[in-house]
């Protein structure tokens, strides 16, 4: 109810638009203001998108002219086993990062909720991973994962009496190591959104529950969780869409290796396009990803809108 008030309904009263105004100065004016933004979006967003769709149907050959190949690029990409592996990695990484990030963000939010100045300082410090550029985070984690016993994490393991683990050099562990970094970057971001949700919970409910002698777990389960469900939904959607197109994290940390064990959809498309010069195939892969992302966004928005109406 309250959320709908802030967004004014569709402004469909063209009363001010008399016939004269349509042709006059008044009608041209907004377009003058919109022109720079539309031009930039057209040239650097929509034109590349269209070009990508177009090229995905061609065998792109510099200086020889492009050759129409129909859906060949698509079938080639979808049947390529390295791309099939990449789908699996993208899903594992995306789901793991999203869920891990939400659980960690929720725990952080519950821990750091409150007004005390010390809590604000801790929140500020905990939020640092979000502000840091992904490439910098990648370099940090490469050094933390340093595979000998004097690496930061491995020296911690050493204290526990365990041997050094070559996190990024071992195909068995590299994907999980990448996921851990992703969770580390996502959790504080989710924390902020969940904290905003927690602030909206009606405190008198907690009080009433306490009078009824409800346990802490029941209070969380029946008051807090339902109250922040909208915030959780948003967080999950954002994380899932972000997980689908994960690129920089993987590219900086592992470059897709070792032995393709962390190759995700976008790193694979990047390698195909820029290293192998298979622009048609890379475009087809990108278009597929774009379709899935758009489909996902539209579906989620549909369900969210329906939820609002109800």
């Amino acid at each position, binding site marked *: 109810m309250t959320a709908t008030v802030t967004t004014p309904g569709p402004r469909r009263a063209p009363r001010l638009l008399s016939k004269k105004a349509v042709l006059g100065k008044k009608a041209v004016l*907004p377009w003058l203001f919109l022109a720079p933004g539309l031009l930039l979006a057209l040239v650097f967003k929509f034109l590349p998108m269209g070009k990508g769709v177009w090229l995905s149907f061609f065998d792109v050959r510099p200086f020889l002219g492009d050759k129409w190949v129909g859906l060949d690029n698509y079938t080639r990409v979808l049947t390529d086993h390295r791309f099939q592996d990449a789908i699996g990695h993208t899903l594992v990484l995306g789901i793991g990062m999203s869920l891990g990030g939400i659980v960690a963000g929720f725990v*952080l939010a519950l821990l750091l*909720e409150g007004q005390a100045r010390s809590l604000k300082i801790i929140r*500020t410090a905990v939020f640092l991973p979000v502000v*840091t*550029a992904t490439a910098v985070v990648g370099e940090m984690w490469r050094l933390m994962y340093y595979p000998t016993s004097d690496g930061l994490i491995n020296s911690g393991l050493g204290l526990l009496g365990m041997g050094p683990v070559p996190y990024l050099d071992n195909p068995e562990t590299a994907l999980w190591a990448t996921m851990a970094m992703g969770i580390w970057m996502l959790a504080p971001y989710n924390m902020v959104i969940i904290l*905003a949700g927690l602030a909206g919970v009606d405190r008198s409910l907690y009080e009433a529950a306490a009078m009824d002698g409800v346990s802490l777990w029941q209070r969380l389960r029946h008051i807090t969780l339902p109250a922040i469900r909208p915030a959780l939904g948003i967080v999950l959607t954002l994380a899932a869409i972000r997980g689908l197109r994960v690129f920089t994290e993987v590219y900086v940390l592992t470059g897709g290796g070792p032995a393709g064990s962390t190759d995700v959809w976008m790193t694979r498309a990047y390698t195909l396009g820029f290293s192998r010069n298979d622009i048609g195939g890379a475009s087809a892969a990108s278009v597929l990803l774009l379709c899935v992302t758009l489909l996902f966004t539209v579906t989620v928005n549909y369900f969210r809108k329906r939820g609002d109406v109800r």
Partner: protein
Amino acid sequence: MSAPAIEPVRTPVTASPERKSAGKRRTTPARFDTALGWSDRPGPAWALRVLLCALALGVFAAPFLTVFSGSFSEKASGSTLSFLPHHPTLLNFEVAGERGIWDYFGNSLVIAGGGLLLQLVVCTLAAYALARHRFRGQALILTLFMLTMMLPEEVIAIPLSLVLGHVPVVGLDLKGTVWGVILPLGAWGFSVMVLTEFMKDIPAEIEEAARIDGVGELRMLWQVVLPLCKPALGVAGVLGFIMIWDQYLLPLIAAKDPTDYTVTVALSILRTDPEVGSGVVLAGAVIALVPSLIVYLLLQRSLVTGIAAGATKG
């Protein structure tokens, strides 16, 4: 301690929807201020909270300390990271400087400054038209700007690199120039949306009064609307800066050769340089880290507001 306890957690959404319940909280005892009912008084629960907070700080903030201390440590080739530098020195920064880190940093500053300026100007103009004017196709235009958010650089990277090499109609080659990075960042749906929402809330009376005084469109935007939009401009500015500084793929594909890289992309060059140790990479990381750190610490509130706004509207 009593007065601030009334306030909800300070993460206000731009047009805060839930202000109505604030009055009820006045009578609530402090115990129910948090979902877990943390207590302020020392006790077992309090001790547990302190311990867990320390753990959270250790996991999320301590790595930054080790990066800073590592960058000042003398043993540049070592991989050992600790909280205090052993034998503090500036040597790592000097070596990083010899490898041209300051040139990369300069590239980054030009791109971040120019990109942010362009983005704010372009998005403000568009938002002004969308919020304060009525015209045919308004909903469609708004949808187009929202679409720019859903079209990530990753997905259009390959065709975008072709477009950057040969911009249609004008036929310019933007590769190897800062424009190749700056121009694609100009239209950003998030800024358009935040600014539009904010400008819609400016009362029509103010605008009408100015119109009677014969104020033209540009002066109206510059002298009447913009001063009222400062909070929204802050949000768009901070998030825009963080977004631009975080760019990786765009500077990579817009570069003609490695000297065009931004500092974040150039870290990978430092890393693959066999004559350079971890200390120098960390020095580079610190140089790439400091600007976003400064922006964050100065304008935290705008950033958090923006994230909440982006989450509820996006």
